[in-house]
C-alpha cells in the first residue's frame, strides 16, 4: 500500500495496511446495530464506525462481553479491561445460544486461512485433515458466526491464491449454499463482503458467487484475478475505493488506537 495522508500536524504519514482495511471495513457498517467481532482489525473497524457511520453500533465479543467500555485497547477478546465497566457479561450458553444462534447479530467478522468463491471458510487444516501439513486452530465460534449472523464480513490482509482457493482443503465454516446442499436451512446470508489489500469482493446471499466490486486506487482487475485461485468475476460497475480520509485516519490514530497496538 502506498497511499499517503496528511497527519493532523501537517506532516505526511504513510497509511498502513491496517488503517486502510479498518477504514474501508468501517464504512460497510452503516445501518448495522450489532456486530460480533474479534480483537484487531474488526474492532478497529467497529470502533471507527461508532465514531462515524454507525454511532449506536454495539460490539459483542466471543467471550460474552456486551457494551464494553475499556480503559485501554484490549489485547484479546477476553481481556480484563473489556470486562470492567462493561454493560453485561453473558455466560457462553446465552452468548452462543440466545445472541448468536438467536439471530441477534447483524454482522459477524471472520478470518480464515482459506476462502472459496461461495464464501466458505477453512480454519482447520492445510492438507488432509487426517494427516495435515499444518494443523490450524479450528472453528472456535466461526461456524456459528457464519451460520447465524445476518451476514459475514471477512477481512484478509493478503489477497493471494493460497488463500483464495478454487477448492478448500477442508470446509470448517460453510456458507448457506453448502448448508442447503446438506439439507440444512441456512439462517443468514453468509459472507457478503471480503475486504483485502487489493479490493472488495461481495455477494448478496444464497446462489451468488463472490464478485470483485471495488479495487484500491492503482489496483487492476487483472491483478486481483491473478491473486485469486478461481475464475473471479468482476462487477459491471467497478468502483475505486476512496483511501482513508484525513478524518478517519485522525480518529483511528488519536482516538481508537493512539498507542498503535493494532495500527502497525
Amino acid at each position, binding site marked *: 500500500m502506498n497511499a499517503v495522508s496528511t497527519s493532523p500536524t501537517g506532516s505526511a504519514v504513510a497509511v498502513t495496511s491496517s488503517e486502510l482495511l479498518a477504514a474501508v471495513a468501517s464504512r460497510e457498517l452503516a445501518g448495522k446495530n450489532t456486530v460480533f467481532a474479534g480483537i484487531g482489525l474488526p474492532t478497529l473497524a467497529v470502533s471507527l464506525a461508532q465514531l462515524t457511520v454507525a454511532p449506536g453500533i454495539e460490539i459483542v465479543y466471543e467471550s460474552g462481553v*456486551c457494551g464494553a467500555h475499556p480503559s485501554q485497547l484490549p489485547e484479546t477478546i477476553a481481556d480484563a479491561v473489556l470486562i470492567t465497566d462493561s454493560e453485561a457479561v453473558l455466560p457462553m450458553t446465552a452468548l452462543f445460544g440466545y445472541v448468536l444462534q*438467536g439471530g441477534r447479530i447483524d454482522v459477524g467478522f471472520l478470518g480464515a486461512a482459506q476462502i472459496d468463491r461461495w464464501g466458505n471458510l477453512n480454519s482447520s487444516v492445510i492438507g488432509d485433515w487426517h494427516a495435515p501439513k499444518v494443523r490450524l486452530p479450528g472453528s472456535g465460534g466461526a461456524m456459528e458466526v457464519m451460520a447465524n449472523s445476518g451476514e459475514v464480513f471477512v477481512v484478509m490482509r493478503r489477497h493471494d491464491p493460497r488463500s483464495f482457493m478454487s477448492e478448500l482443503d477442508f470446509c470448517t465454516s460453510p456458507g448457506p449454499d453448502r448448508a442447503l446442499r446438506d439439507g440444512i436451512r441456512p439462517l443468514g446470508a453468509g459472507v457478503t463482503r471480503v475486504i483485502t489489500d487489493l479490493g472488495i469482493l461481495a455477494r448478496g446471499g444464497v446462489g451468488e458467487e463472490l464478485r470483485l466490486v471495488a479495487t484500491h486506487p492503482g489496483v487492476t482487475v487483472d491483478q486481483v484475478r491473478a491473486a485469486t485461485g478461481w475464475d473471479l468475476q468482476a462487477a459491471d460497475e467497478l468502483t475505486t475505493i476512496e483511501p482513508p480520509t484525513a478524518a478517519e485516519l485522525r480518529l483511528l490514530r488519536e482516538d481508537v488506537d493512539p498507542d498503535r497496538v493494532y495500527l502497525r
Partner: protein
Amino acid sequence: MQNPVAESTTPVPRPDKTMTMRDAIAAFVPDGATVALEGFTHLIPTAAGHEIIRQGRKDLTVARMTADIVTDQLIAGGCVRKLVSSFVGNSTAGSLGELRRRIETGRPAPLEFEEYSHYGMICRYLAGAQRLPFYPLRSYGGSDVPAVNPGIRKVTSPFPGPDGEAEQIYVVPPLNPDVTIVHAQRADRAGNTQIWGLTGIQAEAVYAAKRAIIVVEEVVADEVIRSDPNRTVIPAHAVDAVVACPRGAHPAFAQGYYDRDGDFYRSWSHISKDPERLQAWLDEWIRGTRDHADYLEKLGDEHWSGLAVGEAWSEPVNYGRRL
C-alpha cells in the same frame, strides 16, 4: 463506498429506551398479539397487565408459566383469547375464580387453554431464544398432556440408548412471543437489566420474543449497571422499552424493595369467586385508576409500610482495573 464525515469524538451515545407504561403498551402490545408475562412468584409484571386492561386489549394469547392473579385479571378484563401455561392457580393461597369459570363452564366466554409442565414451558422459551425447531426434554413420557396438546411430539435420537436400542424422547416447539414483558429491580436507559433474588425464566422469555418491555423499580445511572456487569441478566440489545414503575409487581414482591402482599393473595380467591365482585374490583382498582401511580395512591402509604423490608447488602466484588 460510503464516505464518513464525522468530525467529533464525543463518547458513543447509548440509545434511550425509557417510555411511560402507557406508551410502551400502546406501542408493543397490539390486539391479537402473543404476550409473554414472566416472573416466577417474584417480580411479576402486574402493573403492565393492569395497563393492558386499561387500554382494553383484545384477543391476546397470554403465555405465563405460573398463571396467577394478573392472568386472572387479564382474563376477567376481556383481554385474553388463549392461555399457554404450566400452572394455573393463585400460588398457595387458593383459586383463580375467573380462569376456572371460563374453563369449567365456558362462561361468560370460553378460554382456549394450552397445557404444559414447567419444564415444557422453559424448553419452549429455550427453543424460541435459540431459534431451534424443537427442544427435547425427559418428561411427558406416559402423560396424558400430549394427548390434549398436539404441540408436544416425539423424536428418535440418532444415538443408541443405554440398551443399544433406538431411543425416543419428547420435544416441544419454540415459543416466540410478539412481546415479552418482565419486571426487574433496575435497568439503565438503554435496557441493560439487573435482577437478583429469583431470576426465573425472564432472560429466555425476553430473548425468545420479537419485542421486549422491561418494567423496573428504578432506572439507574449507567455507572451502577457497569459496576457489576455479571448482574445484568438481560443486555440492552434484547430490549425495546424501559418503563420505570416502582412497586409495579404488587401483590408480588421485589427482592430488597418490598415484600409479598400475602393478604391480597388470600383475598383474591374471594374477590374472583364472584364475577360481579370481580368486575367491580376491576372497575375500581384498574379501570378506575389512571395509572399505577394512581393505583398505589389508592392503596395508601400505610398499606405499603406493611410491606417494607430491611437491609441485607451483598458483599461487593472487585472487578479490577489495569494499573
